[in-house]
């Protein structure tokens, strides 16, 4: 087998990392492209993972480091695919390296620059609940641990430049283009969150104590904005009751997306259990329509939440959330559809589980690579049953959420699958060269 043949992996989330590691550890060269300054993806933002309750960053950080350290993987963070053309069996890929304004080789990640930077802005990694500087690393365990200046907010005051011990700050840095020849491409661009503002009856954006699940995840996380203390944003009080609402924007023929996001029932259950562990006094209710417990060990996980953790499950989606202008407390109106009565309940915090949708960038990529998207915007499989990770373009494969909704284990498994197919393609082209 030709070992110098290389593969381009787009997306540095868990799926992208797994595919890269599989390919690299079998001796293939991998270019891992990530548009944000650090790899790690969504999983790095999570507090725990169901059903094992592993600390998410604890199990994903080693994988991130593995990617960084693997001799066969070159990390292209803060980069984007700009153009792709074909030459024989190979793809010729143009990668745009966005200016970090910090010299990656010089930066030691000491963080002095950030200490002195006068600009404070909401931290995307903490879903805007925490703050970061204009020169920043998205998360403490960032890989690579190199700072980035976000041009949009930077005042160009030059303070960072003055304090940087290694002279790594370079405000004149220009974007550059890298050209790669690869034998195969794997897409693992993941998902983004549906904007639940449009579902106005839940008042996200108007009511301070209505959060979306990923924000809440950060709120629970020990490395999050409250240092892992479960507090209400409106008044810093410890909540006595938290309600989760499923399917916000998903399974909708109107004002949302028609499909099921697949992971919400379980991560809500996980977050519910976490609340009970943080604050045993806090009442937790999950409003759902259909419990999606089809995964391995999921039903048992839910049973545990119900029977041992005292998490309350109500079948029925609330119609509206009314905020008490004085206290910021929330009233949910809902029908318990198994009791057939409409009633209201109070909650200190309401967590909305938004639809997880394919990234907007999937469109651009599909245009760039000549890929078909399905009606929902996921990368379309060549054969849904027998070639699930193949796309309509030979040599290009998709895995993880960008291919269709799935949870972490499935994404990891599918990442390996994509790796396998990529390896086949390369083996094939190698054979061709032989003959």
């Amino acid at each position: 087998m030709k070992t110098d043949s290389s593969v381009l992996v787009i997306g540095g989330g868990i799926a992208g990392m797994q595919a890269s590691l599989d390919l690299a550890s079998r001796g293939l060269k991998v270019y891992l492209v990530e548009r944000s300054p650090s790899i790690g993806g969504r999983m790095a933002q999570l507090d725990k993972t169901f059903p094992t309750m592993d600390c998410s960053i604890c199990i994903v950080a080693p994988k991130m480091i593995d990617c960084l350290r693997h001799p066969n993987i070159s990390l292209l963070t803060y980069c984007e695919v700009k153009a792709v053309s074909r030459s024989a069996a190979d793809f010729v890929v143009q990668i745009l390296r966005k200016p970090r304004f910090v010299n990656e080789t010089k930066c030691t990640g000491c963080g002095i620059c950030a200490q002195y930077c006068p600009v404070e802005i909401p931290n995307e990694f903490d879903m805007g609940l925490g703050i970061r500087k204009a020169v920043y690393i998205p998360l403490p365990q960032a890989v690579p641990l190199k700072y980035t200046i976000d041009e949009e907010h930077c005042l160009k005051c030059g303070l960072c430049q003055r304090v940087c011990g290694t002279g790594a700050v370079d405000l004149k840095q220009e974007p550059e283009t890298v050209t790669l020849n690869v034998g195969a491409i794997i897409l693992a661009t993941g998902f983004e969150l549906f904007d639940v503002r449009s579902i106005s009856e839940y008042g996200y954006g108007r009511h301070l104590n209505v959060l979306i699940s990923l924000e809440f995840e950060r709120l629970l996380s020990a490395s999050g904005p409250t240092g892992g203390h479960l507090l209400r944003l409106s008044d810093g009080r410890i909540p006595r009751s938290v309600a989760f609402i499923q399917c916000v924007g998903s399974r909708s023929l109107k004002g949302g997306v028609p499909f099921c996001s697949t992971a919400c029932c379980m991560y809500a259950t996980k977050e519910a259990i976490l609340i009970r562990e943080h604050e045993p006094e806090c009442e937790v209710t999950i409003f759902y329509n259909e419990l999606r417990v089809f995964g391995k060990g999921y039903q048992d996980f839910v049973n545990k939440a119900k029977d041992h953790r005292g998490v309350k499950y109500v079948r029925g989606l609330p119609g509206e959330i009314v905020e008490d202008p004085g206290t910021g407390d929330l009233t949910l109106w809902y029908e318990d559809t198994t009791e057939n009565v409409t009633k209201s309940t109070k909650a200190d915090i309401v967590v909305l589980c938004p639809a997880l949708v394919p990234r907007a960038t999937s469109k651009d990529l599909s245009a760039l690579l000549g890929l078909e998207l399905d009606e929902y915007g996921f990368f379309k499989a060549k054969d849904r049953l027998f070639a699930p990770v193949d796309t309509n373009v030979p040599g290009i494969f998709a895995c993880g959420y960008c291919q269709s909704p799935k949870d972490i284990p499935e994404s990891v498994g599918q990442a390996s699958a994509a790796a396998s197919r990529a390896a086949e393609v390369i083996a094939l082209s190698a054979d061709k060269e032989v003959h």
Partner: protein
Amino acid sequence: MRYLLTRRCIRTGQMNQQARRIGVFVCHCGINIGGIVDVPKVVKYALTLPDVVYSEDNLYTCSSEGLNRIKETIRKYDLNRVVVASCTPRTHETLFRATCEEAGLNKYLFEMANIREHCSWAHMDEPDKATEKAKDIVGMTVAKVRLHTPQEEPEIAVVPSTLVIGGGISGMTAALSLAGQGFKVCLVEREPELGGMLRHLHKLYTTMEDASEGLNKIVEAVRQNRDIDIKTSTVVKRVKGFIGNFDVSLQSESGETANLEVGTIIVATGADIFEPAGMYGYGKFENVITQFELEGLLRKGQLEKLGTVVMIQCVGAREEKGRTYCSRICCMTALKNALLVKQMCPEADVYILFRDLQTYGSEYESWHRMAQNEGIKFVKYALEKPPEVVAIRDGKVTLDVYHALLGEQVRIESDLVVLSTPLVQRGDARELSQVLKVPLGPDGFFFEAHVKLRPIDFATDGIYVCGSAHSPKNSAESVSQALGAASRAAIPMAVGRLRTEAITAEVDESLCGGCGTCVKICPYGAIEKDEKGVAKVTAVVCKGCGTCGASCPEKAITMRHFTDEQVMAQAFAAFRRATA
């Protein structure tokens, strides 16, 4: 020290002559540790410990920055032991070991002190005590690392061939992918023909193509493939050896056995359908059948006109006890077959009695809506109030079901009752799990190494799982996982060699009495008695649990890296005051 050295201690007591130079790196982990534990104090304390020549604190020892510090320091102070006091070794040991290696230090001369999970995070309200404990933990670790010796990870060659157990869609897909990557595959199927579950199915959602169609293509491809050796009517009798070099003996129906060497093994044995004997009159009345049997009838076109069809979901699944799990594929199968029935006889009245509809993912919801559009009636029932067969008279089954969402009883007169029963582990799975020494989970399905990040690997290296043997799956999901298994199996084979566990048991022949206790105890069959009647450990099979060492009547077994004196030294360091 007060305690008497045991016999073994006396013998191995005087090792590590060469002067020890230990470096201790204490991590603040941002504020995770530094916020509670007085890290500088710990550093100062570390410097008072025997053989510690250097100590420092880092904001994040695991950052590339911190790792570089370690490497530099190892060189600068020519350290020959390293301790990192930070988080749990379960996630970060490999990282730091690798770092030591890069600095030319044998990675087994490294040890971690977990002062985050086990200290700062657990004792946030008692900073002083936490600091004391952190000091102890560091002390204990230093005490252990002092006695560490370099360990070698023997390198072994990997036979570039795979044994795939199970000739269903998963097994065949894995086989084809591996063959496509240039490896030899032996595909073992216990039935006389390939195909597995798909042979019995009618149409596949969501493409609605005939199962046979897709299946035949794949079977053909497998047959045509020179690199795949198909063995039907064959089972795996015995597996010895280890990753890279499993030697497998197969037995065919006719009884003759064949042996072969493979580097990796993929378990793709699929699953069985649960037989709902006695439930809803199944087995007593011919118009109460399983969803699986319906597939058959549809396939053979043996369904004449139907008035009312009732499908009951979760029959024998998602139970209070026993089969608590959801079988994942039944809801979509029911939807698909309900639609087929509607197609066949549009005037038929089709009910689906469900608990929670599992139409997950991108396109299944649209199937649910398709069914709604076709006027298929959905009735939600609760676990506590399952449907009841109240009468069966002249070919009609009368069911009472409490419609949980209406809060009232609904009576249905039906001509055909279809029970959706879960996939269950095969009867012979336990046997196979023992042959392969891989575990089954509480639900009876094969149990992977890590539910989240290693869904396809077994804890035992070189053995992988895919398809419904792992948990119920439809064909698309099985194919995807099978490809994944192929990738995992290909890794060691593509590289051709691999390093194995260094933390293994070691028998001191002079002490071994050959009682064979260890042979019996070892869960991996890693110990055998040699011709001299003395126990011998097959290092590459040994997983290093140490049970044998702890049980050896002659105390003839040493556990590398967890020797008695290392463990005890650690324990005594725990009460420096008591024993100093």
